[in-house]
């Protein structure tokens, strides 16, 4: 299939998904509001914590808010793009995955575009608002370097969480036991990314830096923005390396996905 028509096909599919969601107005607004609510309730933790202390893991309230905001924007964008991969067990069980396998497009790309849940924009909004409110208080100059770091963090962070969704999806080929089996990876990673990694004890910090690179989503980029070093082993320049962590994670994700598709034998119907 020619390059141009493939792109056109994806665009047509995505356009229809978007229109379909917007046509049920009440349901869409309710979903959007509840996603706003999730973002707000998660921010409540930061709010309550800083009503009791002035620093958390070496960051003040605005710096910690920046970590929260970046982590939420990245997770919500990844959730928007790839979060519905956790519907995979349903496709496998009902046999609808076979239809994807027959089409001349990569299965992962088809699944990723099978749904774009616009309601998840609610959480992106919470992150953006917190970011805009916190930024002036952090005293970080909004220069070219800062913008470049922010862009690197958002792109890298979104890619890291998307890769986690793909890994979680790939695992389902073997586990076949619904979404919960891998929630600790995706939602746990998202939860871990919202707080300064300096809070975690050494084993947990190691886990969230170099195995599930949640610290690369927000904490390390914020350290780089501030020009501060973190605890031992986390120098400030590491904050530029979110895309590198994402690339490493994606290679694992694609490898697992290929194995998963190969392992898949269909439901027999």
């Amino acid at each position: 299939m020619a390059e141009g028509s493939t792109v056109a096909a994806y665009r047509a599919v995505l356009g229809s998904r978007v229109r379909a969601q917007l046509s049920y107005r009440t349901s869409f607004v309710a979903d959007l509001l509840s996603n706003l609510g999730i973002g707000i309730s998660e921010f409540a933790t930061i709010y309550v914590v800083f009503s009791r202390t002035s620093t958390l893991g070496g960051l003040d309230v605005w710096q910690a808010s920046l970590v929260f905001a970046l982590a939420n924007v990245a997770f919500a964008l990844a959730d928007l793009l790839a979060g519905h991969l956790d519907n995979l067990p349903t496709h496998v069980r009902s046999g609808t995955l076979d239809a994807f396998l027959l089409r001349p497009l990569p299965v992962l790309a088809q699944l990723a575009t099978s749904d774009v849940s616009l309601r998840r924009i609610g959480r992106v909004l919470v992150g953006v608002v917190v970011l805009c409110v916190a930024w002036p208080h952090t005293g970080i100059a909004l220069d070219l370097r800062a913008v470049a770091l922010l862009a690197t963090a958002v792109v890298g962070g979104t890619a890291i969480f998307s890769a986690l969704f793909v890994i979680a999806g790939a695992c389902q080929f073997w586990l076949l036991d619904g979404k919960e089996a891998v929630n600790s990876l995706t939602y746990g990673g998202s939860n871990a990314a919202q707080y300064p990694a300096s809070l975690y004890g050494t084993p947990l910090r190691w886990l969230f830096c170099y195995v599930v690179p949640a610290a690369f989503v927000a904490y390390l980029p914020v350290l780089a923005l501030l020009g501060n070093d973190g605890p031992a082993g986390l120098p400030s320049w590491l904050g530029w390396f979110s895309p590198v962590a994402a690339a490493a994670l994606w290679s694992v994700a694609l490898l697992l996905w290929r194995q998963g598709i190969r392992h898949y034998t269909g439901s027999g119907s």
Partner: protein
Amino acid sequence: MSAYPALVAAGFRRFSTYRAATAAGALTNSVFGAIKAAVLVGTVSGAGSAVAGYDVEQAATFAWVTQALLAPVNVFAGDEVAQRVRTGDIAVDLARPIDPQLAAWATDLGRAAFMFLPRGVPPLVLGILLTGLALPSDPRSYLLGFVSLVLGVSISFSARWLVSLTAFWLTEIRGILMLYTVVATVLTGLAIPVRWFPDWLGTLAHATPFPSMLQSPIDVLTGTATGGAALELVVVQLAWLAVLVLAGRVLLALGSRRLVVQGG
């Protein structure tokens, strides 16, 4: 009247069949427990030596015990009953010779009893390994704590029952269930102890049954509240339970009358 104990047993057995999902849930609870313990301990360290009566070890204990009790208490709303209302299956429940509300309550107690071991023990073991747990030595804390936990599970059931029955009028309640879960996550004390809340949020929380679901059982079990204070928490729980159960009965009666009109 022997149907209800049988339903408790059935609820226990039913959930014991989802082994892999239960193991996965325990892992998720443990991962979130580790992160929450780190945040709460970090808060206490940042604030000095204690926050609202919690020292470092008590803060960590709170994180692990909330994660252990999250599944038994079932803080997050599901839509099983709401779906039965939407599809009309609730009519079958109403036709049965046992009370649908009491039957669902009994099944939920069975579910909670099962969940306690596989979902509750792993976060506690991880807690002992990572931070240590600050637990009371007085057996009365555990006895009253057990009573308080059963009440907490029952209050949580009764509140979710009420929310589910709004499906009689609203049909599609996914948004409301999500809203319930969001509010419950904060106000039950699941994320942060209710006593750490700023005044306005604490007052708001105590005007709702949410702290009676999770925070109160944990306060009694961990010995954060003892003696008269613990008894007071249990009395408040009993009051909330009575209010919610009665409201549930009224709503079911109103809803089933409406169902007759609709169903034909």
